[in-house]
């Protein structure tokens, strides 16, 4: 049942406390995340396993054909996979959240309603970045290095953050749109899997049939992998970075429009 008029609870003025409230709610998001073994496994354990399995299976092959270590592209790809895998788990957590009693309690409290949304997104961003740092550190063992200096390393994580922003934006839209949680996995899993498998992270671009090569090269995971490789190992930088920024910011803005409209309805009850 939807209210015919928008509730006064909608979006109260006085955004002064919004940042403080969002941080507190982000803290809760993170706390719930680290207490959920399934989420840790899905967004951290499993991608890490992929890293070492794929390295074990293909490192020699890639090294022989490409003349460079596979970990150079695989580690950035795995970092993007951890961000991707955050979409589903975060969307489901948020789906449950905005239908829970806690959400209703927050709606009846003198706080900015947007903090529930920003808190979720901020929490997601922090966890995506945290896991990215961890994966990068662990990938040091099989030979992943930041060889382009400190500035490039910072740029590396800024790009990961942008990619994470896109992921949490998608997660929020999915949570606000899905009639029930299993739908979210159906929406999210296949496209993200296709994008990661059909990217220049798993296989070098030249290995793809020429007919689809340009599509593979232009899709966001490929551009992000190329940009991250450029910022860590070295290589072409300008085009992949610009393309990645365009993709991530573009999709995030698109999601923001949908989110604002849908979230308003949720807050109004």
């Amino acid at each position, binding site marked *: *049942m939807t*209210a*015919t*008029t*928008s*509730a*006064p*609870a909608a979006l*109260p003025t*006085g955004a002064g*406390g919004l940042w*403080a*409230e969002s941080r*507190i*709610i982000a*803290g*809760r998001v993170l*706390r*719930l995340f680290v*207490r*959920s073994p399934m989420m840790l496994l899905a967004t951290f354990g499993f991608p890490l396993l992929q890293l070492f399995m794929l390295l074990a299976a293909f490192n020699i092959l890639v090294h022989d054909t490409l003349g460079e270590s596979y970990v150079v592209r695989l580690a950035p790809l795995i970092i993007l996979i951890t961000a991707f895998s955050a979409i589903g788990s975060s969307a489901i957590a948020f789906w449950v959240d905005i239908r*829970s*009693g*806690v959400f*209703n*309690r*927050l*709606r*009846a*409290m*003198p*706080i900015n309603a947007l903090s529930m949304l920003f808190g979720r997104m901020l929490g997601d961003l922090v966890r995506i970045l945290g896991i990215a740092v961890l994966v990068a550190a662990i990938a040091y063992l099989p030979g992943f290095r930041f060889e382009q200096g400190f500035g490039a390393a910072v740029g590396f994580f800024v790009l990961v953050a942008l990619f994470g922003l896109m992921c949490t934006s998608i997660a929020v839209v999915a949570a606000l749109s899905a009639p029930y949680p299993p739908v979210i996995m159906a929406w999210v899993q296949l496209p993200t899997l296709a994008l990661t498998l059909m990217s220049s992270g798993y296989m070098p671009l030249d290995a793809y049939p020429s007919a689809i090569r340009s599509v593979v090269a232009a899709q966001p995971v490929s551009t992000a992998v190329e940009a991250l490789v450029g910022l860590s190992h070295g290589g072409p930088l300008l085009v992949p970075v610009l393309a990645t920024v365009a993709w991530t910011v573009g999709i995030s803005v698109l999601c923001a429009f949908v989110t604002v409209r849908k979230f308003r309805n949720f807050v109004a*009850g």
Partner: protein
Amino acid sequence: MAEAAIEIDRLRKSFGPKAAVDDVSFSVAAGTVVGLLGPNGAGKTTVINCLTTLLTPDSGTARLAGHDVTTDPAGVRASVAVTGQFAAVDETLTGRENLVFFGRLLRLTRTGASARAAELLDQFGLSEAGDMPAGHYSGGMRRRLDLAASLVVPRPILVLDEPTTGLDPRSRQALWDAVRRLARDGMAILLTTQYLEEADALAERIVVIDEGRVIAEGTPKELKKDVGGSVCEVQISDAGDRARATGALAGFVGVKERDDVLVVPMRGTDELSAIVRALDGAALKADDIAVHPPTLNDVFFALTKDHRGSEGPAFDTGEGRS
């Protein structure tokens, strides 16, 4: 006299063509408990949602601690503690973490929130379970934690939406004690419930609503007087037998049929044997016979009959008011 803590005047809220709340007026003074009583779908939760700014009323006014829900929702939210029908606590977080979380959101410092959490855990008998995830709590503990979470920051008004639905008697008693304490401390408390017994135990005044309208208002004693004494319920599954039983019980006043049960109002316990004799005389065998004191159902049966029989759009709610 100063304005009551909760002042509701001709409140109206419709969902589409259906009026969920239709012309509801009542008030709650500081330090008192008022019970809002009604069956499922009567409009209780809609009233609560309007009072807690989760819904905007279509017309009428509701003022809480002087703040109007429509023009000053922020003021209302800062004055009202709400405990909803379903425990609004995080099951993964411990009881203490839940309280600290809400305290921090309400601008308590880290240490202030911790201190307040410890205080509340103690006050609601949850100290030992404080560091356990709320998901492991029993139903009663969860409701108490929920209530505590509403009280992290002191507020003049408490709204309780069916706080004991589904609780065992002992947990219910513990929650009632907590509510009484809060009223003694001066809070104005509005409580919705489906149980007459609960309103009876807690509320100084009861407002009965049905189909979005106030159909009666008064003290529990006044309401029960209207309903009368205990009732005898005679269950007869066979429709033909039931019809004959209705005839056999024609000597009793106010017999009503509710599904396969005949409800016979009793003026005294000796009437039970008279009822049994009447059934025996007609060679009828009841599937079940039960005697119980008046329940909300009975109040309701009595009240809704009058209400629906009355003509005119506005039911007079003035008689019970002081």
